[in-house]
C-alpha cells in the first residue's frame, strides 16, 4: 500500500495515463506552465552551444599560430617591478638564433624576427603596415601558405635582398584585386620586389589582423630598415610536442649562458609557449561558458518554481477532484504519484520542446551573426536531466499536499 507498490510497472503506467489525462483536461495551463521550462532549457542549450562555438574558434586560432611553437621574446618580463612589453629590451641576436639551431637537437626550425611599422607605397597608393623581418622557415613554423608566388630563400637572407612577401590585406589596400606578385613596393622609400602573396589568415589570438603585413628577410630588415643588431623575437618549432617543456628549459639554459647571466638575475628574455596561451584562452572561455550556462540555469530554476506555483494552484483548484479520487479508494500514495508525475511530465515535455527550440535558436544565431555554434550532446542530456529533477523536486511539495487532503473537507470545498 505504500509508494513502492505504486511503482509496480503496470500500476505506474496506469498512473502515468491518469496524470496525462489530467494535464490534457487543462491543456492551455499545462502549455503555459511548460513554457518556463521551455525557455530555460532552450537558453541553456543555445548559450552552451554559443559558448562552445566561441571556445572552438579561439582554440582553432591558437592552433593556427603553428605547430609546437615556442617564441623567445627579448627583454625580461619586468624591469625593477615595471612590467614592460614583450620585445621591448634588446637582448636577442642573430648569433643566439644560430646557437639555438645548432646546439638544441629538439628544435626543428628557427626563425629570427624583427618587426617595425612602416609606410608602404605602391601603385600610386600608400598604406601603413607592419614590416616583419623573417627567415624562410617562418611560413613552415607558422603553418602559413602562399596563394601566389614563392617565399624568399636562404640566399635572399644572406644577401639581404630587397624582396617581399605581402599579406592579403596590405596587398588589397595597395593593389586592389590585381595580383601583386612581380610588382614593386617602396618600404620607407626603399624599393622591394613582391615575390609572394600570403594566404589570408584572419584575426589572430589578440584580435589583430594578421594579413596586414609584409614579410622581408630579417637581414634586410635589420640592415636597411631598423639599423639595429638586435632581434625582437625568435620563433622556434619543436620537433616533438611532448618535448616542448624540456626544449623550453634547454633554450632558457642556453640563452642564460650566452647572455652570461648570474644565477640570481632574472632572464633577460621571455619564452612564450603556445600551450600556455591555449590553456589561458581555454580557462577564459570556460569562464564565459560557465557564466552563460549559469544565467540560463537560473531561468531553468525560475521555470521550476513556476511549475510548483501552478501545481499548487492546481491542487487547490482540483481539491474536489482529489477528494473524489480519495473517496473512491485512491491510495494517498497514488495521489502523490499522480501529481508528481504531472509535474515531471510538464517539465520533461518542456525540456523536450526546449531542446528542439534551443537547437533552432543556436542555428539561427549562428547564421545571422556568423558565430560558430557547437551544440553539445552533454548540454542536451544535462538540460533533460535537470528538467526531470526540477519536475520531481518542485512537484514533490504540491503532490504531498494533494495526498494529505482530507476527503470529507475536499469534497465540501467550493
Amino acid at each position, binding site marked *: *500500500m*505504500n509508494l513502492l*507498490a505504486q511503482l509496480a510497472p*503496470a*500500476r505506474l503506467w*496506469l498512473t502515468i495515463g*491518469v496524470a496525462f*489525462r489530467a494535464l490534457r*483536461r487543462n491543456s492551455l495551463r499545462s502549455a503555459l506552465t511548460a513554457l518556463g521550462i521551455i525557455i530555460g532549457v532552450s537558453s541553456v542549450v543555445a548559450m552552451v552551444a554559443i559558448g562552445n562555438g566561441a571556445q572552438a574558434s579561439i582554440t582553432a586560432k591558437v592552433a593556427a599560430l603553428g605547430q609546437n611553437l615556442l617564441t623567445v621574446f627579448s627583454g625580461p618580463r619586468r624591469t625593477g617591478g615595471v612590467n614592460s612589453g614583450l620585445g621591448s629590451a634588446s637582448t636577442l641576436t642573430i648569433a643566439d638564433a644560430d646557437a639555438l639551431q645548432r646546439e638544441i637537437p629538439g628544435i626543428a626550425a628557427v626563425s629570427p624576427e624583427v618587426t617595425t611599422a612602416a609606410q608602404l607605397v605602391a601603385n600610386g597608393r600608400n598604406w601603413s603596415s607592419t614590416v616583419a623581418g623573417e627567415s624562410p622557415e617562418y611560413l613552415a613554423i607558422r603553418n602559413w601558405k602562399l596563394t601566389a608566388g614563392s617565399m624568399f630563400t636562404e640566399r635572399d637572407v644572406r644577401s639581404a635582398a630587397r624582396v617581399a612577401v605581402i599579406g592579403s590585406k596590405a596587398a588589397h589596400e595597395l593593389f586592389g584585386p590585381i595580383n601583386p606578385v612581380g610588382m614593386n613596393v617602396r618600404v620607407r622609400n626603399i624599393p622591394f620586389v613582391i615575390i609572394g602573396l600570403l594566404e589570408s589568415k584572419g584575426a589572430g589570438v589578440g584580435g589583430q589582423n594578421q594579413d596586414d603585413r609584409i614579410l622581408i628577410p630579417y637581414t634586410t630588415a635589420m640592415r636597411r630598415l631598423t639599423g639595429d643588431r638586435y632581434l625582437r623575437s625568435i620563433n622556434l618549432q619543436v620537433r616533438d610536442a611532448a618535448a616542448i617543456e624540456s626544449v623550453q628549459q634547454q633554450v632558457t639554459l642556453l640563452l642564460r649562458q650566452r647572455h652570461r647571466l648570474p644565477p640570481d638575475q632574472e632572464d633577460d628574455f621571455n619564452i612564450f609557449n603556445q600551450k600556455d596561451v591555449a590553456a589561458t584562452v581555454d580557462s577564459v572561455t570556460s569562464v564565459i561558458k560557465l557564466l552563460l550556462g549559469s544565467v540560463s540555469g537560473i531561468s531553468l530554476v525560475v521555470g521550476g518554481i513556476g511549475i510548483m506555483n501552478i501545481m499548487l494552484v492546481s491542487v487547490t*483548484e*482540483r481539491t*474536489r*477532484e482529489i*477528494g*473524489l*479520487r*480519495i*473517496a*473512491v*479508494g*485512491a*491510495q*494517498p*500514495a*497514488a495521489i502523490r504519484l499522480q501529481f508528481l508525475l504531472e509535474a515531471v511530465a510538464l517539465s520533461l515535455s518542456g525540456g523536450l520542446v526546449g531542446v528542439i527550440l534551443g537547437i533552432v535558436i543556436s542555428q539561427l544565431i549562428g547564421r545571422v551573426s556568423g558565430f560558430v555554434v557547437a551544440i553539445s550532446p552533454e548540454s542536451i542530456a544535462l538540460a533533460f536531466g535537470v528538467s526531470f529533477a526540477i519536475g520531481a523536486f518542485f512537484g514533490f511539495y504540491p503532490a504531498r499536499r494533494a495526498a494529505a487532503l482530507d*476527503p*470529507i473537507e475536499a*469534497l465540501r470545498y467550493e
Partner: protein
Amino acid sequence: MSSTAPFIQLVNLRRTYASGDVAVHAVRDVSLTIERGDFVAIMGSSGSGKSTLMNTLGCLDRPSSGEYLLDDVHVAGLDRPALAHLRNQRLGFVFQSFNLLPRTSALENVELPLLYRTPLVPAATRRARARDALTRVGLANRLDHHPSQLSGGQQQRIAIARALVTQPDLILADEPTGNLDTRTSIEIMALFQELNDAGITLVMVTHEPDIAAFCRRILVMRDGRIVSDTQPPRRRIARDELATPTQTSEMEPTETTHTQLP
C-alpha cells in the same frame, strides 16, 4: 464474508471535533444495526450529525470512540491506506453535486474507481464494466458524452454508475436528489429502488420527507443522536409513480443547477 452478524453495526459511536477551544460533539453515542439489503434514509436538520454519521459509515472518517463493524471488519482500527482500500472494494458513493470530472467522457468518469483497485483491473475489463454500469443506469447511448453535454439527472446517473462499477455491497448517497427537480428525483429513486431490489444495501442522507418515503427505513437525527427509527407509513414505489404521468407536472427532465468539478 457472510456471517450471522449484522452487515453494519455501530456500537456507542462518538465523533467529537475540536472547533477552536470548544469540543463539538457531532455524533453522540449512536448504536445502530443495518442489515444487508436494507435501504435507509437518514434525516435531520443541518448540524444534527447526519453528515458525520454518513462519513463514518462511508469509511471517510474514523469515530472518536465506539465501534464500527462493517461485515465483521473493525473499521475504527484501520489506517488511511486500509480505509481507502476498503472504500474501493466495498463501497460506492453518490453526492449531491455529482462530482464528475469535467471534460471527461461518461465512460472514463465511471472507470475512475477501477483505476485504484488492487489487484489491477486490465483496461479492457475496466471499459467493459464501465459500459455495463452505464447501461444499467440507462445511459448506454451516452458513453462518450462529457458531463457538460448532459442534464443534471443524466449526470447523477453517471455518478451512480461510477458507484456501481466496483460492484459494492453498500452505496452511500449524500442528498442525491438535492440538485434535481421532482420528476428527475423520482427517476433517480426508481434507479435506487431497482438496485436495492437487486440486493445492494443503500444509505441515503436527505432532508426531504417525500424522498425518504422511497426508503425502507427512516432514521431521524437531532443533536448527534438518533431520535427516531421508523418505517415509512406508506412506502412510495418510484416505478409505479413514473408509470402514471398525472402525478408529476414536468414530463421532460429539465436542466437544474448542477456542479462539476473545476
